[in-house]
């Protein structure tokens, strides 16, 4: 036994020496490891990643498992491919894992990167698992498998034969073609599998997709740009500290004489400023309960003064809601009819409209309330809408668009 080990060791060194002369460094290096399989596995990871990397800028803090999966699976594939190439001894482990991950990507990441990444990973994993050192030079690192095959004389004899210095180059050629045949075989099997699952056109397409898909989705510019994740978190904390927020909780201005008295609304949720612009050709209230002046909280702790309308139902025709800030895009919602039903509460900072008889009416936070009650119907209404709450709201033929 010791003699045998010694012999293989000597054979190793001899082989290394002869190959070093005959082959370039890279080819020799690649031949000693499951290079093609590992490379395909790495490519599969990249394809899976770019098949749909979600990036909703600095607004969205990723929570939940969905974004996690779409990131971790591609990273795992890249690592498994690299490790299989760098540590060929563990190729079975890495290969089987990449097969499992590749198949799982089918349900984990955009149908396996729309099949392309999953196929790359499956072929890569199969080649990695199937790869074996062709020459005796790696036998030393493979002591376990040698022990297994030792019970069987024929394969060992074959290996011994191929260990002769003249043999390697000859045996390499049929190996290559066999590898190609194998890749084709696997492709056919996998495509056949998908085809059998009633996914029409996937088979011919899968053959032509990889290049365009990779070409299109992998330009360096497409790398998702990491945005400042601390902005939205630190902003609200820092603003009051830096004096940015105009008016802390203590700065509620006492109402001026002759102006409406504002009382805090304990039930109001935290709302935002500036108010959205709401327009309509007519607005009608049923069961108008109250019009009151209240203060509501903002997220930075300050309070704003608003007018609160409470009613059973409110209907607005030719509804238009424009949500925008001082700069940037606006989100415009149009609807033929908006119906608010049940416990409707509306917070506005201004209301201008026309009465049925044609006279104008306006409700503002800095003017005294009108002496007369609000009529049940108003025309050409414009609201500075801070918030609306209702048991249900229905929009007829709604069209919501972003205007940049």
């Amino acid at each position, binding site marked *: 036994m010791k003699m045998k080990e010694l012999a293989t060791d000597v054979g190793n060194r001899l082989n290394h020496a002869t190959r070093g002369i005959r082959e370039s460094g890279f080819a020799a290096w690649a031949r000693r490891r499951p290079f093609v399989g590992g490379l395909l596995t790495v490519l599969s990871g990249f394809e899976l990643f770019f098949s749909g990397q979600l*990036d909703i800028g600095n*607004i969205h803090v990723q929570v939940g498992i969905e*974004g996690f999966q779409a990131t971790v699976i591609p990273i795992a594939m890249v690592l498994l491919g690299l490790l299989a190439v760098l540590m060929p001894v563990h190729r079975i482990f890495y290969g089987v894992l990449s097969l499992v991950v590749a198949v799982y990507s089918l349900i984990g990441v955009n149908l396996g990167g729309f099949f392309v990444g999953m196929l790359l990973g*499956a072929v890569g994993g199969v080649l990695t698992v199937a790869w074996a050192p062709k020459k005796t030079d790696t036998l030393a690192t493979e002591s376990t498998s040698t022990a297994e095959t030792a019970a069987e004389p024929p*394969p060992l004899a074959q290996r011994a034969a191929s260990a002769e210095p003249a043999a390697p180059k000859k045996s390499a050629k049929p190996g290559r073609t066999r590898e190609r045949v194998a890749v084709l075989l696997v492709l056919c*099997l*996998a495509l056949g599998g998908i085809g059998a699952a009633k996914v*029409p056109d996937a088979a011919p397409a899968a053959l032509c997709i990889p290049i365009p898909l990779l070409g299109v989705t992998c330009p360096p*510019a497409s790398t998702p740009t990491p945005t400042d994740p601390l902005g939205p978190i630190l902003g609200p904390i820092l603003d009051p500290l830096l004096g940015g927020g105009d008016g802390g909780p203590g700065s509620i201005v006492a109402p001026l004489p002759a102006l409406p008295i504002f009382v805090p609304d304990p039930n109001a949720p935290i709302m935002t400023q500036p108010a959205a612009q709401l327009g309509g050709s007519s607005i009608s209230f049923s069961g108008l309960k109250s019009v009151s002046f209240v203060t509501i909280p903002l997220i930075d702790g300050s309070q704003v003064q608003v007018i609160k309308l409470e009613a059973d139902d409110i209907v607005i025709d030719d509804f238009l809601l424009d949500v925008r800030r001082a700069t940037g895009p606006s989100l415009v919602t149009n609807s033929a009819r908006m119906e608010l039903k049940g416990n409707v509460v509306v917070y506005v900072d201004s209301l201008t409209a026309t009465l049925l008889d044609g006279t104008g009416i306006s409700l503002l936070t800095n003017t005294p309330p009108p002496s007369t009650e609000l009529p049940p119907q108003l025309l050409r209404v414009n609201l500075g809408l801070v918030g609306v709450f209702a048991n*249900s709201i229905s929009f007829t033929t709604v069209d919501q668009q972003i205007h940049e």
Partner: protein
Amino acid sequence: MKFSRITGSHAGRIALAAVPVALVSTVMMAGVANGAVPVSFAISGSQFQISATELNGTGFSQYAGVANDTAGAPHQVAIANIASASLSDLCQSVVTETPLGKVGLMITAGGGGNPATATDLQIGMTDLKGDSTFGNIRIGVDASTVNTGPKGSAGDFAQDADTIKIDGLQQTAWSTQASVFTLTGMHVQLTDGTTTCF
């Protein structure tokens, strides 16, 4: 004896690894197409269309956000979250410009009274059409205080609702993600870019 002969040759090892993988992926694809196995989606970077004859959902919120395209250019979107949704006659189509011309992908599912379902659905949309009804709605709340898991940034105008129902939904979006997407009766079609959902 026989097994070791299979493992002894390169082709044998390839077959040994490939056959189970092909089998498992076939079974899995069949499961996905029948809605038995849910899949998860996370796509962004190109504009695509989503349509459904009817959407029913619970746990809705909407606020402003930004989605980046493949070139890294930011696009303003309205981010809509739906914690749990069922979509009848769901259609999702995307058209990509490639060096070889336009390539389109169209996925349909949830037909025949057997709607597709999604949980933790998040869509970054720019355009939405349909008749909609919201239950227990709050319009104008701060985006950081909405009632859904994902939230917007403080100071943004937002709305949330316990239930949402949209008939004749047609929307254009830059991004979508869903942790669990059950695609009953899934049908994937490659198109030349002329066939879209609407």
